[in-house]
């Protein structure tokens, strides 16, 4: 048997090593799952983790990597601030949808226009939409002490019905012959989120993600608010004595994460997705939770974690076309990664002492 001994402070080594260990363990367990599905586990893992980077079609797929990583990083950076302070916004998916609807709505309202100002206005509208949607759980939490986890999650389902209403109703393409879906932004140059460098996948959303990473890093390392966030998470009682206002922290953390999720949605709808459609929501808001934990709630870690998670998306799509691997297998694979992360986290907080048959 073994006993766990709490470390006085988390191990430096394991803090960096656990995400790597978790990815390796997930590859092993995922390989076993793929083997059960009748696929060669080594080929499957190579298709997911190696081929998008160095394989035959890597020149195209590397670009896809940034397209997928951009929204994941953007959302995860916002979520990580709240998670650090013990504020659980798990409705990023809903904020992402509403941000996209606000952003696209502003753009489509003035269709067709050629002014260069429309895109910045759409960005502001997208962030505002996400912020607004996140303010609902934040205000309910601070005013009525309502559980923010349940409210933010419920609002995802509400946002999804609004999305289907938008796609079939108020944002539907008037020239779309009655088909659901809005006008496509690829035919609307002024409002389009263009690819900045050809074939690189680099669009304004990715730029925003990088800015968010840097801003969050500075905030956490150098700013009073960052200090308060960390303090509130690690020692809530001490934080109260130090004059941290929990209400202000909830509103700020929820607001930032909502605005970033809304931005991600807006960049997605005007760029890679192209239009508001019924199946626009693709689960980025939920996967970003895994990204935030994989990055250990650290902005720089999240940058790497977002790229790794994007790899599983891109590689997973490859695997589903080449190896006929069901796309649900990738979703289960990503869920597994979070399990292993949480499990190996033990190593950074506890020491494991083996007992050689002695009684305790």
């Amino acid at each position: 048997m073994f006993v766990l001994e709490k470390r006085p402070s988390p191990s430096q080594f394991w803090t960096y090593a656990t995400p790597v260990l978790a990815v390796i363990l997930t590859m092993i367990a995922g390989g076993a799952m793929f083997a059960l599905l009748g696929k060669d586990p080594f080929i499957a893992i190579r298709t997911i983790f190696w081929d998008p980077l160095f394989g035959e079609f890597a020149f195209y797929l590397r670009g896809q990597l940034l397209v997928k990583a951009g929204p994941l990083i953007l959302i995860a950076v916002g979520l990580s601030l709240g998670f650090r302070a013990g504020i659980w916004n798990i409705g990023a998916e809903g904020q992402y949808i509403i941000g996209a609807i606000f952003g696209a709505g502003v753009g489509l309202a003035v269709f067709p226009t050629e002014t260069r100002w429309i895109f910045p206005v759409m960005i502001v509208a997208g962030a505002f939409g996400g912020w607004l949607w996140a303010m609902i759980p934040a205000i309910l939490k601070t005013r009525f002490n309502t559980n923010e986890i349940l409210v933010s999650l419920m609002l995802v389902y509400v946002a999804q019905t609004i999305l289907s209403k938008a796609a079939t109703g108020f944002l539907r393409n008037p020239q779309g012959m009655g088909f659901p879906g809005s006008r496509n932004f690829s035919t609307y140059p002024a409002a389009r989120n263009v690819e900045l460098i050809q074939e690189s996948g680099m669009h304004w959303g990715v730029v925003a993600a990088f800015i968010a990473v840097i801003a969050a890093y500075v905030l956490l390392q150098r700013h009073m608010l960052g200090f308060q966030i960390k303090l509130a998470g690690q020692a809530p009682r001490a934080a109260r004595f130090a004059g941290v206002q929990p209400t202000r922290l909830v509103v700020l953390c929820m607001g930032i994460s909502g605005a970033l999720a809304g931005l991600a949605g807006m960049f997605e709808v005007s760029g890679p997705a192209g239009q508001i459609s019924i199946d626009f929501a693709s689960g980025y808001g939920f996967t970003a939770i895994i990204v935030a934990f994989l990055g250990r709630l650290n902005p720089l870690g999240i940058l790497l974690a977002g790229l790794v998670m994007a790899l599983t998306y891109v590689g997973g799509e490859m695997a589903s076309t080449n190896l006929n691997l069901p796309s649900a297998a990738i979703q289960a694979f990503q869920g597994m990664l979070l399990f292993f992360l949480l499990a190996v986290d033990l190593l950074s907080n506890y020491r494991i002492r083996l007992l050689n048959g002695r009684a305790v």
Partner: protein
Amino acid sequence: MDFGGINPAVLVASLMVASVPIMLAAIGELVVEKAGVLNLGVEGMMIMGAICGFITAVQTGSPFLGFVGGAVGAAGLSLVFAVLTQVLQANQVATGLALTLFGLGLSSLMGQGYVGIKPPLTSQVPFGPLADLPVLGRILFNHDPMVYLSIIIIAAVWAVLKFSRMGLVLRAVGESHDAAHALGYKVTRIRILAILFGGAMAGLGGAYLSLVRVPQWTDGITAGAGWIALAIVVFASWKPWRVLIGAYLFGGISVLQLNLQAAGARIPVEYLSMSPYVITIIVLVIMSSGKGRASMNAPAALGQNFHASR
């Protein structure tokens, strides 16, 4: 006796059916939370129960074995949660979310090849002439066994928590794990058992969705039912009989909005289909604010990990 194309007796009868999944999941989660554990993975466990139950029932041809399979499958998933949070000291909120994300993926993976199949029919309890009573017969004596079983489970949980030693120990563990530990109770073991019970109940609820309520397999069949079950526990202020009321309330809303959609009410379909979620939020707000704050009733050690240093 109809109101705008909706027959009240049929409505009540169908709300009893509609509320079974969330009632089972909520009563399971209530026991888990009474033991001081916050398992946010109800949605994931429910959908695992739905697919495991569906596969078992289709393969064996027996709905009864299907429900058993659903309970076992979901309890298996909840065991992962139990090991992670109770043995490996992982954060309960994050692990619960992981359970939901993983459950949604795995269930959709397992369910491939089962889309569009009809499960074996769950027959109704034969009440003989009672079923032919006007109105009452339709409401009370025309259901499958799970409708009655779910109410029996509520009564049993209430009795055990209130009157038995086991219930007292469970509540002690949930209120103060350190005190319970000092008294010599096995906090970790009791909590793991409570989590397994919660998993099995969520699984039964999920299996009911795929075997009776819908009845077929589609991806994401639970559509937030697990989260509503979590909200019902708060609504019920951690009291078993109020879970019944809460589940009937939400079952009633979801049935009513479906009936209104079918009856062609002049409210847009989107507003009707978002109503269960909006009403959940409103109810949560009402329950959490004011003098009778539900959170006053929450188990004191809810969501805190226990690590015996000695």
